[in-house]
């Protein structure tokens, strides 16, 4: 049963523009900070990966315990969603 936990839009200079906790995941305060931390740590991976493929949707680029990070990169390298999903 997958449920999205955290959704962030990041600009090309690694500045977060929008952020939301969505889905039916359990909402606890310390979880929110952990999610943000995981997503920011994944930014480096995305930058390297973005140059290897011309696809826009990069599935499952990083894992942390049972959380999976996936991202959609637009043409201007705006990371349209970095999504954390419980698998």
């Amino acid at each position: 049963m997958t449920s999205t936990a955290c959704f962030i839009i990041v600009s090309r200079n690694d500045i977060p523009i929008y952020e939301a906790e969505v889905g039916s995941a359990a909402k606890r305060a310390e979880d929110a900070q952990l999610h943000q931390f995981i997503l920011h740590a994944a930014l480096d991976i995305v930058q390297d990966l973005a140059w290897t493929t011309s696809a826009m949707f990069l599935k499952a680029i990083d894992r942390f315990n049972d959380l999976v990070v996936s991202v959609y990169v637009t043409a201007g390298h705006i990371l349209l969603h970095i999504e954390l999903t419980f698998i």
Partner: protein
Amino acid sequence: MIGAGKIKQYSNILEKPLSKGKQEVSLSAFAFLFSELVQYNQTQVDNISELERRLEDAGYAVGARVLELLCHRDKGNRRETRLLGILSFVHSTVWKVLFGKVADSLEKGTEHEDEYMISEKDLLVNKFISVPKDMGTFNCGAFVAGIVRGVLDGAGFPAVVTAHFVPMEGLQRPRTTILIKFAEEVLQREARLG
């Protein structure tokens, strides 16, 4: 409803394709707007290089937006990661959408590895512009150079882009060349990607 025609009904608004927008814009409307843009900037600056820089900045904003729009609308969500890919994207797709035709030619510079040139016999923005002698080498194609720079910068290929007049035998008006000089990191990344 009168004249409803056959419109496919989408149950979910997210599944509707992006509208193509108006394909054609009046040339005279654009010419008036552009001449007003140039005249307004002329009153604000003291020298030519400042005027060129302002036109370039105006074009930069256009380029950044055009990149996102075209990649989504015309290229079916595929990004450009290679140098030749982004150059041919600018040369054909961007030119076709902005000016109604592909650019005349795309050439690689011979002296330097990082220089490329897009040439156009009759640049649309220069069609109704005449430059007085005392302005020297000023070229309103700086606006188009700004558009190209916006597209390249947005896609992750930082470059210095300038517009030049190149006189050609057999042609009354000189040809306009957009000179693109890529930053060092672009070449290094290209070499690394092999």
